């Protein structure tokens, strides 16, 4: 198996391990590990057979009844040899052996700038008084498409689940996302993998197809994605969504099409996508039915027509030239534009593309907002930001910088149980989230995972509420850049926020502000 991210020391403490003391009595680690790190011999003794296969998911440590296992990163001894660290050496060995490039799941690792060098400005004397989070209200609702379609989307919180395709993730994960969105009144997104019928009623809070058994309130929204692969796309598919999202790119592999490796193309997925079982499903990188902006406008127009002018039309962009790209989407007629940053994850992508291609999420926001403001549609055409958003603090900062809502992909998976071992592309996800193996999928309970997702969203919404209210706001639509400060020069240079201490924007941003038209 090709190397995954990081090398781990697997330590089993023999004094505590049941199997070490009584061979044959416990083999939990063997059973739970999908990577064959452990093996059990004829005598019933468990031993570590291949610690190199360990991806650091820690499921063995979690499930060990005696807490006898420790999984630790093993790299420290090699760091002095940087750049020739152990993972780098392994990577070159792999290429020399196979002639192939590395693929992996998840998003970029170890990136700056993040939102961490931005701080929130609370309210004191020089601004409207703070609001009381415990006793007063704060409006968190976001409405999309109210001027353009019959059924606008009313998100209860400025949050949503990012697109994760069926195929990249399991059926159970898709169902959990639908239930989580139904419990919180937000959106889930089909991604490129086609639509599972169950999602259409789960998302509305119903347990059954007839929609007679209502289980989850208040009900959410399902966005169907229209992408380069068109897997499972038909008129019915397009009409099944509460919005249609035209996918141009994504953070993890902008400029490339979706990648679903053969190991995950089971009979069910092959049937939905129309590829042979076991064969890689590689979406094309571009639309063969769009050659220029005029075609894109026509595409938006016919998607509105097919859905009878009822639902909003979104665009999803990868991180490229945000100002120009957002302008193009606005001209094409979008109701909302999502931009996914460099750190955004995926099921499988060439490692160099995930790590090396794109723009960090933070830096996408100012140019996107500038495009929206210049065309007079800021907050009318909604801006959605995704890519490595971790919590309510990150979300608040993105919103204050001008976004309307913030998406969770990796964070949502982690809420479902993921441990960010980044081995999604192998199809051996120990938690059944990004696997198609029925035994591994059985580890994920959609209802339980849906509840965990809802809990995570609610906690995140509370965080946003706290920050908004201590800053003097009772409505997130009133947030602005004045609510934030950059804490170092780099971040001030990139974000256009005022720098702490200096209490002004850096000079070239000041000039920008003077040139811009005043907001309406």
């Amino acid at each position, binding site marked *: 198996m090709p190397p995954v991210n990081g090398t781990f020391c697997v330590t089993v403490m023999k004094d505590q391990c049941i199997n070490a003391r009584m061979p044959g009595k416990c083999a939990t680690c063997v059973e739970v590990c999908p990577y064959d790190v452990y093996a059990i011999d004829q005598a019933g003794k468990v031993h570590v057979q291949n610690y190199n296969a360990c991806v650091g998911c820690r499921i063995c440590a979690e499930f060990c009844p005696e807490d006898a296992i420790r999984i630790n990163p093993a790299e420290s001894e090699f760091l002095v040899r940087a750049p020739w660290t152990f993972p780098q050496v392994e990577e070159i060995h792999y290429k020399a052996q196979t002639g*192939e490039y590395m693929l992996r799941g998840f998003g970029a690792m170890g990136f700056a700038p993040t939102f961490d060098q931005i701080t929130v400005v609370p309210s004191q004397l020089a601004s409207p008084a703070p609001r009381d989070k415990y006793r007063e209200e704060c409006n968190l609702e976001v409405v999309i498409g109210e001027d353009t379609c019959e059924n606008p989307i009313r998100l209860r919180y400025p949050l949503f689940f990012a697109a994760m395709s069926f195929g990249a993730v399991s059926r159970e994960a898709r169902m959990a996302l639908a239930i989580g969105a139904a419990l919180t009144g937000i959106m889930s997104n089909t991604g490129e993998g086609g639509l599972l019928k169950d999602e259409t009623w789960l998302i509305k809070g119903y347990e059954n197809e007839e929609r007679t058994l209502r289980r989850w309130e208040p009900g959410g929204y399902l966005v169907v994605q229209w992408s380069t*692969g*068109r897997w499972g*796309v*038909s*008129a*019915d598919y*397009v*009409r099944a969504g509460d919005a249609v999202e035209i996918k141009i790119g994504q953070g993890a592999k902008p400029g490339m099409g979706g990648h679903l*490796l*053969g*190991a*995950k*193309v*089971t*009979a069910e997925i092959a049937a939905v996508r*129309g*590829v*042979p*079982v*076991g*064969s*890689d499903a*590689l979406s*094309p990188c571009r639309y*063969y*039915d769009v*050659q220029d902006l005029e*075609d894109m406008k*026509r*595409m938006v*127009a*016919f998607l509105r*027509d*097919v859905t009878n*002018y009822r639902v909003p039309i979104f665009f999803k962009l990868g991180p490229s030239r945000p100002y120009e790209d957002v302008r193009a989407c606005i001209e094409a007629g979008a109701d909302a534009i999502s931009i996914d940053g460099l750190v955004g994850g995926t099921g499988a992508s060439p490692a160099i593309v995930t790590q090396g291609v794109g723009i960090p999420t933070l830096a996408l926001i100012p140019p996107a907002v500038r495009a929206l403001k210049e065309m007079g549609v800021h907050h009318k055409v909604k801006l959605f930001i995704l890519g490595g958003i971790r919590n309510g603090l990150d979300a608040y900062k993105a919103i204050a910088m001008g976004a309307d809502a913030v998406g969770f992909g990796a964070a949502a998976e982690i809420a479902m149980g993921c441990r960010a071992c980044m081995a999604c592309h192998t*199809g051996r996800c120990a938690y059944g989230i990004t696997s*198609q*193996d*029925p*035994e591994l999928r059985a580890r994920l309970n959609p209802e339980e995972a849906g509840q965990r997702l809802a809990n995570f969203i609610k906690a995140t919404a509370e965080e946003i509420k706290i920050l908004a209210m201590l800053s003097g706001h009772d409505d997130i639509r009133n947030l602005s850049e004045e609510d934030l400060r950059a804490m170092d020069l780099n971040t001030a240079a990139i974000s256009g926020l005022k720098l702490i201490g200096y209490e002004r924007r850096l000079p070239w941003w000041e000039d920008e502000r003077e040139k811009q038209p005043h907001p309406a």
Partner: protein
Amino acid sequence: MSLVTDARKRDLPSFSRELNVMAHVVDASDRDLRSVSTELRRSMARGPVVMRKVAHLHGLVAGIKSGEVAIEGDSGDYLGVLNDGATIHVTGNAGRYLADNMTRGMVIVEGNASYGAAPYCYGGTVVVKGNAGDFTAVMNKGATIIIGGNVGDDVATYMLAGEVVIVGNAGKNLGNYLIRGNIYIGGEWANLGHNTRLEPMTEADQAKLRGYFDEYGIEADPETFQKIGRLSEKPFYKAKAPVQPEAR
């Protein structure tokens, strides 16, 4: 190559000849997509429709599940996009991206189609009596696409199922990364794409083509046709067998 091969031209669907007086006529001059489409959907539900002056509209007859429409003259781009069962007949030329992502139904064009004709189609039949452009039948996933004239480059790229019949000549990269399905071609081609090979034509193939040509009034001799199929079903980067339940 002649524009329309028509020694035995198929009759226009009966409705537009005999029932012309009963078909609902939609004149789209100076009208926008929304107004024409609304009228079209209402009328098609009640009976056959004849449309005129639609060349300035794009994405017409989108996602309709049943009914018949005849378009007199030329049509714009994206005609019949997401078609799910309607029969669409164009007497003139069609614009680009004809029958984009069609899943069921029938589209017949007497004249030429353009760039990207019949892309991403899952099913149904598209017949273009004249020529079609580059990237015709790209990512075909099960439709039957018949072109009575010539086609351009990159035709049937990444085809995953279905069949493409080309009576005339093709350009470069024919059938590039064909995964499944077949291309039947009566003329010549500039070069074949990756993962393709010539396969022998069988009696059944010839009978099938003969059936198509008779039905659609196309003048062509199936015995002069050649067949192109795939080399490997899994031509891309290392495919591993998926984990199937029985294997554990």
